[in-house]
């Protein structure tokens, strides 16, 4: 391996490398963004965009962030153009990803400034909402990571979330919030167990098993909700875990409200992401779990019990999803409603893929989604000329763009979706 480069650089130059093409494509994208920012977001834009960083009630009140709209956007366009042109001349290399990432952020900022020109909104509130909206998606994504890392495809996240929400509401109404939360986690784990049994022991197709669990949970919870909750309303009136401020940290401007003035579920999600990262990548059982996901036969030959590992991890995934599901009821509105998870489990699945099967990646993906979602709400208030339906599409379109443009072919665990048959 020592004489790895007997090649002249000239031969590397004139050949058509993928990297060069990528550099050109991203260069063109950046320039297109620059043109967009100039023509649409800067031209005829006047006034200041005011972003409120603090609420009057905060301990330390920061002044509002006032941005002169037109100059800022012209500047942004110029930077974008510079980055784009640079791509063509320098071929980008390792700057490509960075440039395009920075360029996207800049374009979003320019868009925001344009929409806010002459008005104001609470940036802190938006970030706090970003975090809140990201929680169920991040937990769903984390549940996906845990089970797919042992090669069990988890389409059932949606159902597990819904089961958690339902149990949280029902048991929470009867014995209180913590009881509800624990039961939700247990029931989530139970569905994890069912999924594991179906796919590991009974070798059912993993996708069918997931779809079926979703269908079953939706049917059962809707049935009970209309057949029972309708009549006995006290069964569907759970207490909500309130936000509590972590002393000192919670007082940090902007970041404080986002991270440290939240409820149990937000802290729980952050802790779980950290724990899962530790478990998967720094512990013995995590190593074994990943081995089972990548090459179950190899794990088996080394005396690792593939089936048991799959059971354990899928049950853990179910428990995480159960916790995430409880967020809908115990962490948000205190009552269950039919299909109240509204597809958040599927978005969690997307977050998992987008986050490259890594807990932190899934959290980041969920935050991007949460950001697009709360941005959309702010824009609706700012009265942009864009119809509300199109604003509501923003998170979804953003997800597609990011997945297509930045992620490309992510590599799932090698054995993902394949049943393991001993002998």
């Amino acid at each position, binding site marked *: 391996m020592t*004489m*790895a480069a*007997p*090649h002249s650089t000239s*031969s*590397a130059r*004139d*050949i*058509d*490398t*993928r*990297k060069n093409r990528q550099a050109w494509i991203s260069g063109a994208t950046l320039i297109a963004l620059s043109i967009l920012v100039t023509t649409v977001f800067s031209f005829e834009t006047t006034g200041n965009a005011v972003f409120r960083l603090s609420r009057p009630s905060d301990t330390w009140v920061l002044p509002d962030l006032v941005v002169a709209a037109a100059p800022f956007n012209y500047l942004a366009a110029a930077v974008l153009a510079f980055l784009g042109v640079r791509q063509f001349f320098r071929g980008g290399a390792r700057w490509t990803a960075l440039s395009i990432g920075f360029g996207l952020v800049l374009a979003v900022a320019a868009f925001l400034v344009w929409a806010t020109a002459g008005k104001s909104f609470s940036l802190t509130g938006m970030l706090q909402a970003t975090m809140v909206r990201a929680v169920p998606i991040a937990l769903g994504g984390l549940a996906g990571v845990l089970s797919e890392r042992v090669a069990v495809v988890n389409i059932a996240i949606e159902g597990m979330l819904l089961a958690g929400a339902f149990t949280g509401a029902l048991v929470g109404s009867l014995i209180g919030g913590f009881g509800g939360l624990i039961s939700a986690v247990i029931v989530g784990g139970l569905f994890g167990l069912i999924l594991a049994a179906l796919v590991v022991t009974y070798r059912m197709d993993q996708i069918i098993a997931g779809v079926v669990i979703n269908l079953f949970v939706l049917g059962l919870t809707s049935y009970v909700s209309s057949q029972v909750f309708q009549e006995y309303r006290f069964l569907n009136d759970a207490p909500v875990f309130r936000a509590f401020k972590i002393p000192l940290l919670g007082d940090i401007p902007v970041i404080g409200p986002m991270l440290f003035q939240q409820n149990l579920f937000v802290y729980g999600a952050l802790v779980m992401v950290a724990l899962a990262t530790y*478990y998967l990548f*720094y*512990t*013995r*059982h*995590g*190593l*074994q779990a*990943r*081995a089972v996901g*990548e*090459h179950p*036969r*190899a*794990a*088996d*030959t*080394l*005396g*690792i*019990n593939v089936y048991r590992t799959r059971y354990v991890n899928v049950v853990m995934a179910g428990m995480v999803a159960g916790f995430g599901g409880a967020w809908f009821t115990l962490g948000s509105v205190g009552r269950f409603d039919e299909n109240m998870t509204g597809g958040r489990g599927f978005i969690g699945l997307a977050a998992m893929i987008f986050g490259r099967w890594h807990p932190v990646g899934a959290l980041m993906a969920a935050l991007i989604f949460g950001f697009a979602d709360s941005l959309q709400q702010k824009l609706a208030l700012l009265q942009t000329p864009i119809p509300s339906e199109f604003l509501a599409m923003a998170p979804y379109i953003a997800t597609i763009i990011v997945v297509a443009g930045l992620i490309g072919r992510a590599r799932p665990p*090698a054995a993902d979706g394949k049943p393991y048959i001993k*002998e």
Partner: protein
Amino acid sequence: MDIELKGITKRFGPVIANSNVNLTIRAGEVLGLLGENGAGKSTLMNILSGLYAADEGQILIDGKPVVFRGPGDAIAAGIGMVHQHFMLVPVFTVAENVILGVEPTGKLDWLDLATAHDKVNEINGKYGLEVDPGTRVEDLPVGLQQRVEIIKVLFRSADVLILDEPTAVLTPQEVTEFFEIVKSLRDAGKALVFITHKLNEILEIADRISVLRDGQIVGEGDPKTVTEAQLAEMMVGRPVVFEVEKAAYAPGRTLLDVSELTVLSDDDKIAVDRVSFQVKSGEVVGIAGVQGNGQSALIEALTGLHYAASGKILFLDKDITHASVRERHRMGMAHIPEDRQRSGMISNFTVAENMVLNTYYDERYASGPNIRWPDVFESAAKYAVDFDVRTPSVFTRAGSLSGGNQQKLIVARELERETCLVVAAQPTRGLDVGSIEYIHGRLMHARDTGDGVLIVSSELDEILSLSDRILVMFKGRFVAEFDATKGPVDKNAVGLAMAGAQA
């Protein structure tokens, strides 16, 4: 530690993989285990290593019967196995692979990788293995992956090492080094079982030889007295011809003319670097090289699976540098891909469907948008017979055939149609002598009837016995060329060139 297998029988549904097998394994000795594809060697050893449970029979360790409920038990009893198909997690590092299942752990289940690295280095030093514990296994050449497997077994302080076809992927130099390791292990008092299809190797290294056929022990041999021919006959049940018969070298027109071809790997590294060569009709050109030196990328570029970053490929005087896979097929290029399971066939398709995998659109089988299945079935049956593909019917799942028959199926598909250039990558990897004999005969037949044949193989003997000209590839370039038409080529010289020594 001595081990005795007594009356082992194992069935997979209707298949009897082992039937009443008795075998003794002794400390300080290398037992050579021979047998055709599907004879039951791997199954027997998987039973010994606890992966499978025997249906009947007993395992005795130092005279005491033991029962293994899983590989964990066997490992605990000091039995380690290096599997025929590597049991390594490609995305893990060497150290992670080695410790998997017996991880050194700190508090809170913390994975102690530092200790793991130390231990790997310790074993490295003891047996002269030299593998960097921090490298990802998928980035290692096959030869080194092999060593990782051995380190794994040693790390578990095994006294019995089972090596299932460990040399199938090694260069001659690597085999020599590997045998050194085996000998040092034997001298350290370990018991070894060595499975291979290569008779010369077994004669060189084994202290005793057992031969399996159809799941039964059919004979034993003493490596000092027995000959290769005797062993081969014992395995196959009939005399085997080792020499490849071929007609006199009479090259015709140039079929393939490659000039200054550069190919990039998926991560944009240069895999093939400005390579030029030609293949003429009626000749066999062999490309020798250790895996990972660009042969696969070269083949992919020639067959249209990977784009050429620069350079030119002429086929039948036509520029096909940017032609599609299909166009090249149509012009008469046949391709036997190196990984038959992954890319050569579709296991869930039937034999018939696989037989027409790249000819289904041909007029012979299709009219308009339709495929005429009866015609397909008939042809498939014919070719299966012609090429000795042993299958219950053409409607059988191809995945259920044995490896040798799968390979014959692919060869049948590629050679039955009108071709003029055969590109064969590792055409006989992992096959037994009988199948190898057959496939070599077929390739030579193609040459003798005027086709050009390009063979890429890491099996040096194969290259030497088939090729008219030999090109040695190292780090993406041809570093040596040998002419085999005027007399035998020096095997050592080729081996050295493969290892990068300047010719």
